[in-house]
């Protein structure tokens, strides 16, 4: 019986033979082959599309130089500070607007309409206010992430179960206790989503500011590679940057326990 049982155990399907995986692999291979063919053909201006080997070598070279990590650290510091400033102010504004219907009706439309405007246009003003150094980049990051976090928090606040609020009030919780014991735990999901959105736009805002006017940071390195027409290095930096940005976004979701919230 035991033998028969063992024989009946279904064998795990070979993942590689699943149609979706086959299609994915086929698309990746097609793109890589097409890329290499264009690189070798000379159809485009030399080095606009460098060979995959050159890009791979540039990635290895980039990741093995300490200079890159220093610039990455500068950008990380600017994005982190911008996210902290914009995030905390966005959270406070979101809590205030979410808690008061009249304030929400009065001021939220301004946030709602200012949110989708291109924030980079404020960069000249930020330079005037905070100088050409890191301050203006931090400010760009803060402005960028303020709007999604504030709007997400305000929306999350309005979705809190009224029962939870009444429970807090019946225990005569003060404003601070209501915020820390009821509002913030109940709004975990929208706040994390807001922070994820905010992180994405803070990275974009900070890096765009670095490409425009800076002598440090990853944005500066990208525009420097463009100026020197060092295309493999530019591709390498963009690839590494995309991986870092997507990884940071996933990390925020994981640290905030987004997956466990979804499972409930």
């Amino acid at each position, binding site marked *: 019986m035991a033998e028969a049982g063992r024989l009946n155990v279904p064998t795990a399907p070979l993942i590689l033979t699943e*149609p*979706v995986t086959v299609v994915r692999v086929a698309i990746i291979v097609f793109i890589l082959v097409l890329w290499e063919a264009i690189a070798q053909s000379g159809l485009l201006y030399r080095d606009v599309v460098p060979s995959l080997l050159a890009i791979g070598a540039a990635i290895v070279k980039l990741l093995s130089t300490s200079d890159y990590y220093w610039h990455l650290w500068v950008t990380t510091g600017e994005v982190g500070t911008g996210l902290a400033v914009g995030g905390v102010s966005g959270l406070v504004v979101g809590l205030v607007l979410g808690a008061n*219907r*009249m304030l929400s009706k009065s001021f939220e439309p301004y946030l709602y309409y200012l949110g989708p405007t*291109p924030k980079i246009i404020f960069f000249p*003003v930020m*330079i005037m206010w905070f100088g050409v150094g890191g301050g203006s980049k931090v400010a760009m990051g803060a402005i960028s992430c303020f709007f999604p976090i504030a709007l997400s928090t305000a929306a999350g606040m309005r979705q809190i179960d009224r029962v939870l609020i009444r429970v807090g009030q019946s225990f005569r919780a003060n404003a601070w206790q209501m915020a820390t014991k009821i509002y913030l735990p109940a709004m975990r999901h929208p706040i994390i989503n807001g922070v994820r959105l905010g992180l*994405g736009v803070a990275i974009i805002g900070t890096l*765009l500011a670095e490409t425009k006017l800076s002598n440090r940071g990853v944005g500066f390195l990208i525009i420097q590679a463009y100026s020197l027409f060092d295309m493999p290095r530019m591709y390498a930096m*963009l690839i590494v940057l995309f991986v870092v940005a997507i990884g940071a976004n996933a990390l925020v979701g994981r640290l905030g326990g987004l997956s466990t919230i979804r499972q409930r």
Partner: protein
Amino acid sequence: MTVAAITRSRVFPLALGLGSLALAILAVEVLIRMGAINRFIVPLPSQIAMAFERVIVEEDIAPRFQLTFFEAFTAGAMITVVGVSLGLLLFRINVLRQATETWVAAMASAPTVLMYPLFLVVFGRSAWTIIMMGFVAGLPPVILKTIEGLSATRRVLINVGKSFKLTGTQLFIKILFPAALPTIFVGVRLGLIFTLINVVGVEFLINFGGLGQLINDLAERYDLPGTYAAIFFVILVSVCFFVLTEWIERWLRPVD
């Protein structure tokens, strides 16, 4: 008037918002005149108000607006045509959809605007760099919302179409597309917003084109009132664009 009545009122919150804004502007004006805020860093709001006329008359605002509109419109038309077509393709071929939908979603959240130096190399410092940046940024939401809209078509509508023995093309034209149109438009609207953000942003960054370049030009000339006026003008254009697309979206889906 009770607090509840004030909260329900439509006029009072609007007045409070506008009044607070006016008060803040007045406070800045007073603080600058008192010397509490450096007027070489923040210009007087009254100077900014007067600079509007100068910016509109002397800085060729109409041709700049036309250029930005042309770039955004071209990119918008491209995202609509390509996005809806790709969405339809992925809806029709399920295995392709399963294989690539997460990639499209990842692309939507990726910082694609940072690829602008790459586009500069490929397309040169021209309107096409700006259009293509707008296109790349605005494409993913259109694809995702097209798939969502087509997938959400009620089964009963499709069955009605089949009972009338409609062909695949007829089913798409008469049933699927009209049913999915409101959701597709949500995607087009989101895509247009991303497109406009990128078009103005890249204009500013590469100092080429319409309204984005205007801000850069004025800032480089240290024309602070003009810079602030141009920024307000761009915000106004964005808000008008946003309100217009929102209005069309409501018109397309009157009942949620």
